[in-house]
Structures are given as C-alpha cells and as structure tokens.
C-alpha cells in the first residue's frame, strides 16, 4: 500500500495563547501534558520544561504577553532542527482532510508563516516552529528577568 502524502496536512489546536495550526509533518507525538517544571534563566518564550521520553523539552509560550490561564491537557511534541519542543493543547488536536481548511493565498502550508488558516469558520495562526525556536537562541539571559517560565 503506498504511503499517504502528509505534506499538505495540518494539525489544529487551541491553548491559552490562542488557536494554532502547524504542519502535521512537524508533529512527532501528542501526549497527555506532563508535569511542567520551572528552570531559571530560560527565555520568555519558554513557559517551562516538560520531561518526555527521558528528555527535558521546552514548553513554548505562543503569545507575546501572558494569557488567561486555561487547563491544557495535552502536549504536542514537535521536531525542530536541533531536537524536540512541546506545545500545550487544551484538547486533542484535530487533523482534518485538506479540503476542510483554507490557507488564503497559498496552498502550501509551510510557505505562509505568520498567516492564518481558516478551519471550521475560525482563523488559526499557522506556526513556523523553526522560526520560533530560532528566537530562543537569540535571547540573552543577562537581560532583565522575564516574567516567563515562572508560573503557569
């Protein structure tokens, strides 16, 4: 049986920071949200660390400012060039058929970072995980202490 082409599939989920979509090819696993652990001197984009498969992964914050807390039940584990990162999801993410969502102006999901995808009549921000994690390596911990990674 030929392998299915997943390149145009997206994963949709919501969390405290909003509604998001990302390419299915970037997702390694969806697991119950592990305990969130706090470490000092992490970038503000990191909400905390979660331990998955014996490795401490950063749980990314997807909003620039603190959002009202919601109870996230799942973690979406994503592959990046140097390892893995986690995103929180309030419910099991959805993976609709390509015809059920629209990426305005472009059919290739990976080519319109920062844009929204319409699914179920709601806009979802299309995430570029590599761009987000690239920001992490530019953060200097000697800057004033961030409000991030202190509490959920």
């Amino acid at each position, binding site marked *: 049986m030929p392998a299915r082409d997943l390149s145009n599939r997206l994963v949709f989920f919501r969390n405290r920071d909003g509604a998001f979509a990302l390419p299915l090819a970037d997702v390694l696993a969806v697991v119950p949200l592990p305990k969130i652990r*706090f470490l*000092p*001197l*992490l970038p503000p984009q990191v909400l905390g660390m979660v*331990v998955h498969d014996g*490795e401490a992964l950063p749980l990314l914050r997807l909003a620039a400012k603190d959002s009202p807390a919601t109870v996230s039940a799942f973690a979406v584990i994503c592959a990046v060039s*140097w390892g*893995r990162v986690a995103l929180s999801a309030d419910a099991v993410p959805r993976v609709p058929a390509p015809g059920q969502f629209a990426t305005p102006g472009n059919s290739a999901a990976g080519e319109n970072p920062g844009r929204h995808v319409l699914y179920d009549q709601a806009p979802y921000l299309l995430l570029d995980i590599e761009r987000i994690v690239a920001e992490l390596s530019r953060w200097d911990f000697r800057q004033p202490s961030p409000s991030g990674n202190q509490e959920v």
Partner: protein
Amino acid sequence: MSCSIGMSLVFRLGDVGFSLAAEDLLEIREEDPRELFSADASAAKLPFRDGAIPVVDLRRLFGVPDNPRADRAVRFLVLAGERGNWATPVDRVLGVHPASAFTRCPAPLLSRLPGPRPYGDVELWRDELLVRCDALWLEQCRRGI
C-alpha cells in the same frame, strides 16, 4: 578516599531545586543574613575558620525571585573554590544523596542558548527537575558573566 564521592547535595532557592557534588561542600552553616548583608551586599563576608570568606548570591546569579523570609536565619553552603572557599545562602537543604538517586536528563535547549551560562545540565531527582551546578564554574560565573 572521601565517602562523599559520587554523592550530591540537593538544595532549593525559591521553587527551584539544585544539585552539586558533595565533594565541593565543606560545611553548612546557619547565620543571620541581616548581619552579613547590612552594608554592602557585594562585599558580604562569612566568618569561616580563622578568617572570612566571600558570600555569593546564587539567587541573583540565577534570577530567582527574592525570598520573602530573607530576614530570618538562613543556611549557608560553604563551598571549595579554585581561589579559596566561598559561601552562598540557600532556602532549604534537602540532603545529600547517592548518584543512584539522580537520573541524567538531556535538555538540548540549554546548549542552544547563548552563553556562557551558570548551568547547562539538569537531572531528575524524586520526580523533580534539578539544576546541576558545578562549584568551580559558579565561582567563575560570579566573576565574569
């Protein structure tokens, strides 16, 4: 040979847990920090044996929020450094435990962050993620980074 080889001290600053090699620990003291930090915190000294040793604020180095109970007597770890001994206040000491109590936990993110940083490794102890410290590296950090 010291029986502390392979053992690690676990302590806490605020909500953050830390571990370091027990071989680096000389003594745990309880002092009133008001007497030590009253004038100039950067010049604080702790009486130790026949002299006085510098006090390093790891809370500041790691950006851990201030302890609201800072006016109470706190424990000081006296650590061996390359240029002499030094001391640091901690909120709680959670004991000295054998290496078997700790599980190394890779954290690739930490090696991607700009450095040098006060720590680069973490480990699991009793389901808690601890910051792994190295006394000599911390001694360098307090001087330069």
